[in-house]
């Protein structure tokens, strides 16, 4: 092979990979968004009706529903494309980190007794930042915008303290809808339109 031929192969192969960079992960935001929003609403309802200790176990519903759904959709994506790009890996690692940060942060706040005061602002901020970063990496503007809005709104739960604290659950459900569910549906439509 001559130098020109080799450089031509390099350029052609890069183009070939770019051409096949089919978008994936269109269901992941929804796989986490719906369980989170539903559990927040159920928790609010349970607190209003029963207000007992067992209501706290409802939180376990988020990882119990979200994790299998995420694994299922990730496998489905890999079956279809048979490859994983660097961008996809960065986004996946970032959201896994956000998931762990939420669990560890929630447990720590519960341990020191400030869960009701600041956990929901923390959760909203993490979701908003994750959505914003995902939008930047994917060059998908609706996610970036929803991420900014959710991050700004994440301060709102801090204003509901004392007897009003259960309202934080409703506000956080709204923030999760803005950070995960709405951009999730918009991205799903976008991927359907641009699928190779």
């Amino acid at each position: 092979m001559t130098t020109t031929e080799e450089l031509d192969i390099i350029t052609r192969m890069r183009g070939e990979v770019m051409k096949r960079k089919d978008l994936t992960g269109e269901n992941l935001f929804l796989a986490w968004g719906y369980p989170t929003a539903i559990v927040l609403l159920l928790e609010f309802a349970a607190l209003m009706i029963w207000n007992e200790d067992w209501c706290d176990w409802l939180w376990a519903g988020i990882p119990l529903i979200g994790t299998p759904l995420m694994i299922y959709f990730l496998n489905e994506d890999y079956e279809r494309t048979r490859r994983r790009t660097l961008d996809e890996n960065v986004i996946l690692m970032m959201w896994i980190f956000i998931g762990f940060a939420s669990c560890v942060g929630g447990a720590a706040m519960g341990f020191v007794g400030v869960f009701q005061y600041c956990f929901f602002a923390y959760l909203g901020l993490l979701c908003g930042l994750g959505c914003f970063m995902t939008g930047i990496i994917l060059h998908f503007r609706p996610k970036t915008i929803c991420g900014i809005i959710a991050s700004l709104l994440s301060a709102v739960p801090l204003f509901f303290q004392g007897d009003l604290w259960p309202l934080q659950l409703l506000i956080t459900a709204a923030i999760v809808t803005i950070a995960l569910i709405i951009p999730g549906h918009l991205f799903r439509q976008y991927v359907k339109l641009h699928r190779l």
Partner: protein
Amino acid sequence: MNHFKFQVINPLLHSELRLKIMVGLDSLQSADFMYLCQITDSTRGNLSTQITTLKEAGYLDVSKTGIGRFSRTTCSITNKGREALRAYEDGLRRLFNERVPDMKDKTGTE
């Protein structure tokens, strides 16, 4: 100058299929064997041989999951492989840039 030219040619990457595999994996985190088959437009046997060569050189990580017919081979490029590819590409570009002025001199153009 000739010494430099010989240094540039990494014999492992101076093969069309091996170069295609490395460039293809360079822009990905990991890829399935079948995906590589498609983008390199090669046969399974040939691809498997070249992947083994690159793996032995430490340029690729190869992992197998599943059993028998349902097994899946996933390949990813290592840091050593990525560095080798960068060095190879840089060398090729330098060689190419050296050759272009030579050709212009011979044809009398600027």
